[in-house]
């Protein structure tokens, strides 16, 4: 097991380095001048030259990359060109906001999806199963901006029972102080992911239901309810954990459309604005954070898999 872990961690590190190199190359491939994008329409060649030399943009690419990596090892992710703030503090402000929003959404999605998936597994191919499938697929198939705007139009503008945007908050505590404001964004984000979680849950519950030990338990006379909760639920949850691991990067990367619509500046909008304005430090810094989250998420997912399935642990065919 340790050998497996060590190998996976080694691979994870390699992937993170690969991500940094890839991002670095990609952002420098973007056409147009970084200086012009930040300095604006009236930038003169002189000012562009000053900008470029201040930020070392005239150096050859590999030299810039090395400088950047050295910086990162000192814990310094650079200063945003556009916002003139350290990237670490920007990410520090925005990441908790996404963690709260997407964390709550994911939790809510799970709370709905797990019982739903179980129910669908038990009553597969009957009316109940089909109804839930159709509803969850319809929700999944809605473009999220459409769903968000519709919810705002109905609940915030027409009925006026919920605020249409999330008020600014400096800390997580302040954010949670007005839970009404978080309802619409959380509902938007969670209902869309309920579908995929519940499909997974349904499939894995069916998987467990076909196992021999369930038949044995039934043959022994264990009540169905107990079978469901003691055996099926517990055993089918494990794959869901791997799914959670795969959701981790999403939580860190933010949801740009929900953030835009609900006035909730988070990592998604940070990315989007940085990408359109060639703000390299933010792009590199946030990609690094998301990249790390992705490999951690994958690692957790794989470890979860390895833990539950002994066949996986012991080498390849």
């Amino acid at each position, binding site marked *: 097991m340790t050998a497996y872990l060590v190998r996976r961690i080694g*691979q994870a590190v390699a992937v993170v380095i690969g991500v940094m190199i890839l991002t670095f190359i990609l952002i420098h491939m973007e056409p147009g001048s970084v200086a012009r994008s930040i300095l604006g329409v009236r930038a003169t060649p002189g000012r562009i030259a000053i900008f470029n030399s201040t930020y070392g943009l005239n150096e050859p690419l590999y030299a810039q990359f090395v400088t950047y990596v050295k910086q990162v090892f000192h814990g310094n992710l650079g200063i945003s060109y556009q916002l003139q703030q350290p990237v670490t503090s920007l990410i520090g402000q925005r990441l908790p906001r996404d963690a709260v929003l997407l964390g709550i959404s994911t939790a809510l999605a799970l709370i709905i999806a797990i019982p739903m998936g179980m129910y669908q597994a038990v009553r597969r191919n009957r009316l109940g199963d089909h109804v839930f499938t159709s509803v969850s697929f319809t929700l*999944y198939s809605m473009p999220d901006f459409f769903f968000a705007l519709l919810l705002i139009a109905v609940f915030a503008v027409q009925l006026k029972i919920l605020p249409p945007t999330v008020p600014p908050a400096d800390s997580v505590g302040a954010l949670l102080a007005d839970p009404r404001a978080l309802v619409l964004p959380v509902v938007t984000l969670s209902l869309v992911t309920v579908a995929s979680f519940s*499909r997974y849950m349904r499939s894995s519950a069916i998987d467990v239901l076909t196992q021999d030990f369930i038949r044995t338990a039934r043959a022994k006379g264990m009540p169905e309810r107990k079978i469901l909760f003691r055996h099926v639920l517990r055993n089918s949850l494990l794959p869901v954990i791997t799914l959670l691991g795969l*959701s981790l990067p999403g939580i860190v990367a933010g949801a740009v459309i929900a953030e835009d619509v609900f006035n909730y500046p988070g990592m998604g909008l940070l990315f989007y604005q940085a*990408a359109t304005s060639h703000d390299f430090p933010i792009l590199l810094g946030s*990609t690094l954070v998301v990249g790390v989250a992705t490999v951690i998420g*994958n690692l957790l997912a794989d470890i979860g898999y390895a833990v539950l399935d002994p*066949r996986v642990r012991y080498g390849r065919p």
Partner: protein
Amino acid sequence: MVAREPGIGALAAPEPEGPAGAAELAMAPPAPSPLRRVLATFLENRVAVAGVGIVVLITLFCFAGPLIYRTNQVTVHLNLENLPPGGKYPLGTDGSGYDVLGRLMVGGQSSLELGFAVSIATTVIGTLYGAIAGLAGGFADAIMMRVVDTFLAVPGLVLLLILVNMFAPNLFMIIVLLSLLSWLGVARLVRGEVLTLRTREYVQAVKVMGGSRWRIVSRHLIPNAIGVIIVNATFTVADAILTMAALSFLGLGLPPPAANWGGMLSNGLNYLFDGYWWLVYPPAIILIITVVAFNLIGDAIRDSLDVRLQRL
């Protein structure tokens, strides 16, 4: 793809390190006529059949429709902007004076072409890549998969934004870009399948008999993995259409006078409060129905492949 990781197609997503996990192992169908059995199970699922019916109807609507119902989707007529449904315009007109019903057809052509093209390209590239990686095994496999992991670890939106800015926005470029992002999932899936299948006796037998790698791939591995591939392909169509809608909303979609459902919807939403419902609900409904149909089809195929269900 942009905001939906993991999606419905993620069922088989966790990357198995060694032999595939429990789900994958059980999914390899028995060799004799899998197709017939799959088809039979599929046809029993009435919802799925409905899905196929819907896709067929909508495709006809989009491609054959304009031959019967001709409208001008190029010239802007500002004096006809935002007319409500009635008379000459069964679904009204939009902000540039285009007939909405006709635009749904033309927009559908773009959306469906995009979906199918991305799906095919993704499937072909991903399958080949995954099969080769799975077959090669060892160090080559590790490198190839780490490359996939690297691309997957860069947030899809960032990649898209950067790439979209680099090239002129036309349908072909967007198809290429979306394909570049989607093939990764397929590659992983196929590799997982291949890893499972290559332990099967008949593959070993072919090897012993001196069959070439290519023969193994094309004659044995791909046909047996086809189920998983098709499932993923259908989900890719759905995801591509949704991603295109998201891109249009962010302002990175196709320029006028090109139409696609996502663009129509995001433009129409600007008028939501003005009561121009014909700009919002028709594209929303047709988009959602199409995406749902593809998802249902994919889900049904996956269910039909699932041998365990046969045992219950």
